[in-house]
């Protein structure tokens, strides 16, 4: 027992001493971070920001930033590559009788004609170059500026990829982190699988536009009206809305009628997307004018 205690004490003391000595300190150096200004916004503000506007001027889709633009190269033709190698082989064996006229790539073929040797290097260079402008072309491909060299009749797998890409053509190269705050015709809005905040805001805005509650009331609490409405898939009312709050005063009846009138006049509620019908087929709306009535 005694030996045990001593051994334990010695061991603990040794450990403590070691700890004190080794954890003496260079203070932890943190890298100086650049301060980033951030803004906290509510989901409602976000959807207002990205809602876009039907009447806004069309903004030129921002092109992705590149440091230096190389000379515009005609889009590469993979079939041309295959043919080229054959051509080169033929060149080394015997001069080709007549180069097949390639409608899309007259320049390289002409070059190959004259200097088959340099072609290999030129080809290799070309292959490397095409890799660089590829991401550029990816973004450019769906925007339809008329280039002097058109690729239409030739099958290009990259174009198919662009067709299959469902993202909006005007999306910026650095998406996701930037919020496009300028109103622009066709600015993409966030489309979630769930009923989006912007649809709810549009519904709320329409009801607010049509709702005219009795003003100047003494006791605003009795003006609160809750209405439950069931909608058809086309946005019209499936049946008469049900009023959930009750009251007997004239003031309550007037505010109930004004809320019902807003609901009736708001038909059809076409801002709600049919694919989210399951979520908005049954809506309970609370009309609360207390914020509007101030002393």
């Amino acid at each position, binding site marked *: 027992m005694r030996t045990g205690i001593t051994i334990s004490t010695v061991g603990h003391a040794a450990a403590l001493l070691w700890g004190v000595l080794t954890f003496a300190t260079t203070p932890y150096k943190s890298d100086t971070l650049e301060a980033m200004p951030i803004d906290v916004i509510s989901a409602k503000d976000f959807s207002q920001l990205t809602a876009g506007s039907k009447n806004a001027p069309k903004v030129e889709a921002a092109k992705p930033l590149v440091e230096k633009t190389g000379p515009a190269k005609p889009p590469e033709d993979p079939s041309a590559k295959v043919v080229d190698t054959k051509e080169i082989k033929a060149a080394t064996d015997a001069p080709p009788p007549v180069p097949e006229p390639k409608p899309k790539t007259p320049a390289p073929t002409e070059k190959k004609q004259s200097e088959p040797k340099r072609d290999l290097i030129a080809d290799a260079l070309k292959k490397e170059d095409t890799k660089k402008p590829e991401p550029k072309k990816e973004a450019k491909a769906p925007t339809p500026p008329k280039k002097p060299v058109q690729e239409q009749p030739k099958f290009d797998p990259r174009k198919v990829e662009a067709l299959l890409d469902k993202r909006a053509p005007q999306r910026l190269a650095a998406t996701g982190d930037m919020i496009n705050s300028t109103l622009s015709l066709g600015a993409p809005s966030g489309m979630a699988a769930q*009923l989006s905040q912007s649809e*709810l805001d549009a*519904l*709320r805005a329409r*009801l*607010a*536009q*049509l*709702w*005219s*509650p*009795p*003003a*100047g*009331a*003494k006791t605003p609490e009795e003006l609160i009206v809750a209405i*439950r409405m069931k909608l058809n898939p086309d946005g019209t009312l499936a049946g*008469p809305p049900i009023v959930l709050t009750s009251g007997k*005063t*004239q*003031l*309550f*009846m*007037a*505010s109930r*009628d004004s809320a*019902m*009138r*807003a609901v*009736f*006049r708001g038909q059809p509620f076409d801002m709600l997307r049919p694919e989210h019908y*399951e*979520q*908005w087929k*049954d*809506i*309970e*709306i*609370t*009309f*609360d*004018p*207390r*914020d*509007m009535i101030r*002393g």
Partner: protein
Amino acid sequence: MTKRSVTIELPHLSRRRMLLLGSAVAAGSLAGLAPRPASAVLKLDVTQGNIQPISIALPDFTGLGLPDPATSRAVTQIIAANLQRSGLFAPINQAAYIEKISNIDATPRFPDWRQINAQALVTGRLSRLQDGRLGGEFRLWDVFAGQYLDGKQYQTPFDNWRRVAHIISDAIYERLTGDKGYFDTRIVFVDESGPKERRVKRLALMDQDGANIRYLTRGDELVLTPRFSPSTQEITYMSYGQGHPRVVLLNIETGQREIVGNFPGMTFSPRFSPDGQRVIMSLQQAGNSNIFTMDLRSRATTRLTDTSAIDTAPSYAPDGARICFESDRGGKQQIYVMGAQGGAAQRITFGEGTYSTPVWSPRGDYIAFTKQSQGRFAIGIIKPDGSGERILTEGYHNEGPTWAPNGRVLMFFRDPGGSAGPTLYTVDVTGRNEQRTPTPSYASDPAWSPLLT
């Protein structure tokens, strides 16, 4: 009987297997508890609205056996004018109507009315009853909901056809706004005519829309500040006949007048109490003015204030428990609130300028006043506890507010100065919809009667 116990042989599982099985079961049950998108009701809050006048369609009332068929059209026009003047309704031009109403008992064709964007529809009928009286009835419909909202029938002597129009206007106003109407009321005011140096001032009485005007005094004595009694057909006013001013009680129907009390001094700005039993006024003695009440039956007078300042223009709260008045005991004229039996007075106005002519709203929620500051006159309202002061209109020279019986509209008079005389104006308690009230000549000192029904 032998007990037979049933034993179930569990397959022999190793401990590890049991552990795995147990954790799998637990995970499975937890997955079952995982939140699913609930197929619940979507909840939405609408807290902002868009206050607009209610668009209302008023096709001409149908007439049945009327001596003058134009009467039913006139009734419709009175109702439309009343509703439009209130600023809360927007009557739609009859030229736009699609359906022609011939039978008010039939349900209207709502799609026709929805097409012209009418939110409410009023149909009505005037008929001459067998005993020669007038029968008036109306129906009020909610067009977009396709529902019947309200309808009433009235019987009255034939000459009262204008009042039927006002009563129907009140019923429509009340059903659609929730507030009681104010159309079946009268205004008493001081009619001023003649050149500015020698104005002839007569007491005049008219319907609130300017019709049926009649003069109550002849104009040979100076009359001021007429006020209605809340319960009877009496008016109290100040008259400067025979040298010094005195408070006079006038019965509208009989024309009888009576001097209120025999005071050894000048009495000013009389008003009735809400129960109509007392008159409150200010009495001037030896350079200062104090507030007195007088019981109309016993003629007993009670002094309410006893200061060396000028206390005047008292007004009762609608419950009769408190009064507000104007006093310069603090230096400039300000508004004070005090118990109706007297006692300590509490100042409620503290803004720039002088405050005078306080009038307590019949709803009890505001006191209206005239405020004078830097040469400009304004009509404003303030809550009885002194908060929420709001100016409704400003100009030179606005004065003398009086409340409509529903506490939503104020009437006052404006004197532009110069050779022109004063005219009457109304404004909504929210400060909007300022309108001129037409009178045959210049008019001042208006007072609004309670509802006649």
